[in-house]
């Protein structure tokens, strides 16, 4: 006899649970709870009700005589039942996934409070390669499973609550290629870390196919915190960290020889007449330091020798017109770096009523960088709300606003605005940086150490190459702002118990403004330039989401939808021309010569997609899933603008097999999938246009552009195959996930570099096949778990092997190498057939056939290969990994993360120039005979490079090393093979350390207002256990630039910054 049973379903904490599935056991009858968490179902006494809900353990309750049955569900924390947010915000249980995905929790993201969400992912996910730059707010490269596109974008797509957001890098292309520029960072760094509930990294194409083209490089899915019904919660975080440079990642200087190129001696051993200028700067005729020489291959220091130094020209200096002892600087450029301060305050309020939820968050972040006159301010606001209009109709909205203002962002690459150009490459070891500081602050003039003239008076003199670095920081500064709005409105309507409709309109708009200056009396003519960009993207998604159980053992779910994406980017970049009229008035109208026409862009992209997904599950034992998507993009030629791509995957949860159900195996799952993802072309790569340089007076002229477009482009495609095995043992105390993948990217749309004999520097082609294959291992273990003490360790390991299978052209016209970036010192990053992506090419050592040793020429310098195009390095790491440990004793928790990168080569322009100019300790001191390396070889000096002579006998010829032009044993001036300056980029870093003390509940309760108070001591990048680059941080490289963050190159590298501080978290 059926009768009506009613009741309310709640979570353990008492909050109501709407949408819980209730089925009468053994029948197909069932219902779901309403928004009040209430249900009514017809069932007979003695039968059972099964309550199931995502994120909670299912519960079976026998019906007795009662007519009201209230049920409380336990939240499910096991791996197997863990809810994972997948493409388009769908929630799935882990055992339903047919692909590898790795989740990072909010706690893991914020424990060390770095401020940048992207950097906080480093070392936490297998297969995710994060490369942070050491600049304040600088760009971070996010690469998942290796480089797929040869010249295009390789950065992962960031998706927040199901909606893709812009992660644009608006730095100049020069900056992105490692040349001069300012690093303004990329937009994903504006994501508020305190707003994050979880991050899920979708690595393979099967996981990301529903996002369409842009997800080909993987997706970082961020789920933000949401309010819960009938709750109220306030969290306040307040914290400060301080940052100082890690001196192990900065230059050390030789302290024996000062300014000059020509050395102190001549080839005969006589004193070098040009070791000093001679003149009278005030105290009689005497030696004048070689101000204009930006090298330290000059006269030997001698405290008894009195010399006019750079301050003798400065009338405001106590040393004006005076000679001072010729000694090495007391204070080196490491003292230029200050202590950074990062203060972070945030409040998050979440809550909900019977049928509504809301969240309000505000974060204020103030950062003062380690360079003088640098700061970054962030205001991050977020609001979201949902309301159940009826039992079937729910509306929700979410808006996030971020405002970033930067001052004095760091100059990068080879330019005066990067102080490391002088510190690492072109410097005089006699220059005391604190004296430079005093000189600047006396009257804010450009009192450089690098005067153009040894005799001209202060008023007529100025820097020849290098500014006083303080002048450069305080006068030639940049400022910028970025306003970003992101949000959506969404409507869900339950059409039937098994199908709901979702409509969502999302908007992401950004306004960027960047201003740069060069003040009067700088080495370069004064200049003002500005860049304005506005970008917006809208996404309209309409989809049906269905799930239905049938035949009691089968579960069918899926979705069917359409996406319309529209984006528009308008930008303008302009600068003054030929100097400024009124000094230090920074406006375009103050240009000395007519302003050149600004560079304008007006880029619009439209993509329409339709997609579908179907998953069929059997008893929680096995699942199969199909997806298909078709996109139509305006960036492709109209005739071939449509592309379709499918995926198929399946899994088998063998731990659900009856015969394997036992105590030790908690989870065992095997998945396999195959997926394809199509991709469109970059905007503006189809039709040809002309460049219009500045007119010559009234005569205009046009020119063919550097890149030849292609009206026959077709879509590109990535094919991906993945196997994964997930296991958990002993009630989840131990787990091991293993994934193997192989992806091939075909028909890549590339602007390939071509011989300029073709009339162009680049041309767009469909070409290239790049293969990435690798393994990922994520393991965890909880060796100790007692009432009071627990210890959990997570280990990630990934190894990617990357290979350029083919480029383009056929037969005789087959192209075997594409230059990705042409770098200073005639070194290049390349895609070469049969080689890993990004190989470094340049002159190599020549090895002796018999002995295999490097050949040293008759002048004692390594012989360089005749060809400048030998492979001299592979920037891809052999493997990357992370080990994190979480130890808990009562209220005390300690966590630390060790981040490891093995291999990955870099060419250091810093060493190439800086050793050539005699800055580094290696270039001076004693040789193996105990004699001064800067003495003549004839006198027992010089440098002995290990190797063999042309005949194979061990090298005994020491190289001359007494001047910085031709008789140098090091760097650019020695003409050594570039391979000598290629370094292994491995590192082992203590990335994060956090010690958190949760105030005992008894104490908190006495304080009344609080639910909990946690006090943490935190540190980031505290220690580098191992690295092979002596004077720099191997992680600092090209940011997220056009060269795809491929790295492989350092120029003016910034030292790593250690940060440490505290955070207090209050919950009300």
């Amino acid at each position, binding site marked *: 006899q059926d009768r009506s049973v009613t009741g309310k379903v709640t979570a353990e904490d008492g909050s109501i649970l709407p949408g819980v599935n209730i089925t009468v056991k053994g029948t197909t009858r069932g219902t779901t709870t309403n928004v009040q968490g209430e249900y009514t179902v017809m069932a007979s006494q003695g039968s059972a009700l099964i309550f199931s809900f995502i994120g909670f353990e299912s519960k079976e309750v026998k019906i007795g005589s009662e007519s009201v049955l209230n049920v409380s569900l336990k939240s499910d924390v096991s791996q197997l039942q863990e809810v994972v947010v997948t493409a388009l915000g769908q929630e799935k249980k882990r055992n339903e996934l047919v692909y590898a995905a790795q989740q990072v929790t909010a706690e893991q993201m914020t424990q060390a409070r770095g401020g940048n969400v992207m950097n906080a992912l480093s070392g936490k996910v297998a297969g995710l390669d994060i490369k942070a730059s050491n600049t304040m707010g600088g760009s971070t490269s996010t690469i998942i499973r290796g480089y797929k596109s040869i010249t295009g974008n390789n950065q992962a797509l960031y998706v927040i609550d199901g909606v893709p957001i812009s992660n644009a890098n608006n730095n100049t292309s020069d900056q992105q290629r490692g040349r001069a520029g300012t690093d303004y960072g990329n937009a994903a760094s504006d994501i508020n870390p305190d707003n994050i509930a979880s991050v899920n990294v979708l690595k393979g194409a099967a996981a990301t196919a529903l996002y369409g083209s842009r997800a080909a490089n993987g997706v970082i899915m961020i789920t933000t915190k949401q309010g819960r019904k009938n709750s109220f919660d306030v969290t306040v975080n307040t914290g400060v960290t301080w940052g100082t440079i890690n001196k192990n990642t900065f230059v050390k200087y030789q302290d024996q020889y000062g300014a000059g*190129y020509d050395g102190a001696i001549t080839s005969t051993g006589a004193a070098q007449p*040009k070791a000093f200028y001679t003149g009278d700067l005030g105290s009689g005729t005497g030696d004048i330091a070689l101000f*204009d020489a930006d090298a330290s291959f000059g006269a030997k220091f001698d405290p008894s020798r009195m010399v006019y130094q750079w301050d003798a020209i400065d009338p405001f200096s106590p040393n004006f017109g005076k000679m001072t002892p010729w000694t090495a600087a007391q204070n080196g450029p490491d003292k230029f770096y200050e202590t950074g301060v990062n203060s972070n305050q945030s409040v998050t309020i979440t809550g909900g009523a019977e049928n509504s939820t809301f969240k309000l968050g505000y974060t204020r972040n103030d950062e003062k960088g380690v360079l003088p006159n640098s700061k970054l301010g962030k205001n991050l606001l977020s609001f979201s709300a949902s309301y159940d209009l009826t039992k079937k109709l729910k509306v929700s909205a979410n808006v996030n606003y971020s405002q970033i203002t930067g001052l004095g962002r760091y100059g990068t690459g080879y330019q005066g605005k990067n102080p490391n150009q002088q510190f690492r490459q072109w410097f005089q070891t006699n220059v005391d940086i604190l004296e430079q500081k005093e000189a600047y602050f006396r009257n804010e003039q450009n009192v450089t150490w690098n005067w153009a003239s*040894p005799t001209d008076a202060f008023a007529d003199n100025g820097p*020849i190459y290098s500014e006083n670095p303080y002048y450069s920081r305080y006068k030639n500064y940049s400022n910028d702002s970025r306003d970003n709005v992101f949000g959506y409105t969404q409507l869900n309507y339950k059409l039937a118990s098994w199908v709901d409709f979702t409509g969502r309109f999302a908007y992401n708009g950004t306004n960027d403004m960047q201003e740069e200056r060069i003040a009067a009396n*700088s080495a*370069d*003519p004064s200049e003002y330039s500005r860049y304005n960009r506005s970008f917006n993207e809208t996404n309209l998604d309409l989809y049906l989401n269905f799930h239905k159980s049938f035949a009691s053992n089968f579960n069918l779910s899926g979705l069917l939808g359409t996406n319309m994406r529209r984006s528009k980017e308008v930008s303008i970049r302009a600068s003054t021309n*030929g100097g400024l009229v009124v000094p230090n008035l920074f406006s375009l109208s103050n240009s000395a*010569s*007519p302003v*050149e026409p600004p560079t*304008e*862009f*007006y880029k*619009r*992209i*439209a993509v329409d997609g339709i997609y579908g997904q179907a998953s069929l599950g059997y008893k929680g034992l096995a699942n199969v899933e199909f997806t298909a998507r078709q996109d*139509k993009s*305006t*960036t492709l030629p*109209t005739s071939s603008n449509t592309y379709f791509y499918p995926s198929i995957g399946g899994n088998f949860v063998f731990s659900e097999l009856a015969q394997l159900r036992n105590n030790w195996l908690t989870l065992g799952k095997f998945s396999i999938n195959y997926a394809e993802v199509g991709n469109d072309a970059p*905007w*503006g790569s189809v*039709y*040809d*246009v*002309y460049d*219009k340089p500045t007119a*010559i007076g*009234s*005569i205009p*002229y*046009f*020119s*063919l552009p*550097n890149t*030849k477009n292609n009206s026959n482009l077709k879509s590109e495609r990535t094919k991906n195959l993945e196997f994964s095995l997930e296991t958990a043992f002993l009630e989840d105390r131990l787990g091991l996930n293993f994934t193997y993948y192989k992806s091939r990217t075909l028909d890549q749309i590339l602007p390939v570099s*071509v*011989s*300029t*004999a*073709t*009339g*162009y520097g680049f*041309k767009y082609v469909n070409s290239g096949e790049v293969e990435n294959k690798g393994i990922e291992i994520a393991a965890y273990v909880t060796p100790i778990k007692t009432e009071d003490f627990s210890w959990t360790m997570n280990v990630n390991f990934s190894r990617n092997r990357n290979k350029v299978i083919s480029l383009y*052209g056929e037969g*005789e*016209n087959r*192209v075997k*190498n594409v*230059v990705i970036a*042409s770098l200073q*010192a005639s070194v*290049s990053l*390349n895609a070469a057939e049969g080689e890993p992506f990004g190989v470094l*090419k340049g002159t190599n050592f020549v090895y002796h056939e018999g002995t295999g040793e490097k050949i040293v020429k008759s*002048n004692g310098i390594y012989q360089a290969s005749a060809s*400048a195009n030998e492979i001299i390095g592979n920037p891809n790491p052999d493997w990357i990994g992370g080990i994190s440990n979480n130890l808990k004793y009562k209220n005390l928790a300690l966590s630390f993360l060790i981040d490891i990168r093995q291999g990955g080569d870099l060419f250091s322009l810093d060493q190439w120039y800086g050793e050539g100019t005699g800055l580094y300790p290696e270039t001076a001191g004693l040789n193996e005979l105990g004699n001064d390396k800067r003495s003549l070889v004839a006198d027992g000096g010089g440098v002995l490079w290990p190797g063999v002579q042309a005949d194979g006998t061990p090298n005994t010829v020491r190289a001359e090393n007494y001047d910085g032009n*031709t008789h140098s044993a090091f760097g650019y001036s020695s003409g050594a093979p570039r391979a000598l300056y290629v370094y292994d980029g491995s590192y082992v870093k203590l990335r994060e350390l956090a010690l958190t003390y949760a105030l005992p509940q008894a104490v908190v309760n006495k304080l009344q207002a609080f639910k909990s108070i946690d006090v943490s001591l935190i540190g980031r990048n505290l220690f580098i256990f191992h690295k092979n680059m002596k004077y720099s941080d191997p992680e600092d490289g090209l940011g997220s630039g056009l060269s795809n963050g491929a790295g492989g190159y350092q120029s003016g590298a910034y030292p790593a910054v250690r940060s440490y501080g505290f955070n207090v978290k209050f919950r009300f």
Partner: protein
Amino acid sequence: CVDSLDDYNIDEKKASSVPAVTLFSSAQKEFTDAIVTPNVNENNFRLYMQQWTTTTYLDEPRYNMTARLIPLNLWSSIYKDVLSDLNEAKKIISEDAILTPAVKTNQLAQVEIMEVMAWSVLVNTFGNVPYSEALDADNSLPKYDDAKTIYDDLLTRLSGALSNIDASAGGFGDGDLFYSGNVAQWKKLGNSLMLKLALVIADSDEAKAKSLVAAAAPNVFTSNADNAAFPYISSPPNYNPVSANLNSLFTSRQDFIPTSVLIDYMNELSDPRRAEFFTTVNGEYKGGEYGFTNTYSAFSHISDKIIDPTLEGIVMDYAEVEFMLAEAVERGFITGDAAMHYEKGVTASITYWGGSAEDASAYLAQPGVAYETAGANYKEKIGMQIWLAYFNRGWDSWLTWRRLDYPQIKAPVVTGLDLKLPVRLIYPHNEPNLNGDNYAVAAQAMGGDLATNKLWWDKF
């Protein structure tokens, strides 16, 4: 939907079609820039000819071509910025159905003259270069053609262009930045170019050189008013590239000074052009030591006149034409008075730089300058004076030096280095990467890709 949004992929801020003349103007500007610039990254011929030297950085005066991308930058300027625009202009002109036929013919002939001029720089700098398969975006791997074959074709093309030019019809109008549309001047420029190109092969193909010189000589430049020059203006980016690299308005660098090799010679002859070329130091003209570091303040600098942003950029001038006529007489290619041509050349150079005719005749009266006594042979006499006349024209000076072998400059002697004067530029460093097989064939055909391998016409 997407299909109705065709215009989304159009670059609305750039032109999709342009008048041919604007491409011609662009090619004139880019060609002049490439030839005139002293930037160490692209054009070091003033150094190679020991007219200038550097103060601090010695790679370039010591003939290092790989520390920077020098060969690539020159190569790319000519191919990508000059020839490709000319090629495009030619296409547009040929397809223009409305243009008056005579004007069309003239425009095509002028494009042809510019092209020949640009190609001749490439082929006389590198030797074998991509030619027949070049400038085709569909062919990423153009083969290198034999330098002599290219050169013969250039001479044929130039003859053809010259016979097509009709001075009574119009040309490019104001967009012709050399001559403001004066077509008759192009005839003179074309013939002067023919004279120059023909003399290059005087040692290797005397008969051909002779007939071409004889045909061209009557129609060459007759005064400085005929000079082909680009009218630079005061502001970047259309200012004289010399000013960009030397003028304190635009740079704080102090890289270049004149050499003692040149200044000592000019001092010996009390050359009136010194005041126009150099500044003085303590009332003297003093040059730096070639190939070694020099203290900037201790030596004469390049004059304000030469580093003026508005100084015109000379592509071909009257003085060189007269010197070449003198040579042609000496070689027996034409009849006439070699001394007279020589004197006209010297005079044209002095008056161009601001000296008077009297200055010139006083100068010419000195035994060291007078044609009779200036040197052992015509190569020395002409070679030395054309070297001075080419003071601000490094590439042309280098070309002529390779022909005449005067002045007899020597590579700097540096212990531990074996420096040799370059007689060609090596190929761009990235050609082996981008066009490897063809590069290898070309390098082998030239006896190796070396700066010391002489070009086919360089017999002495």
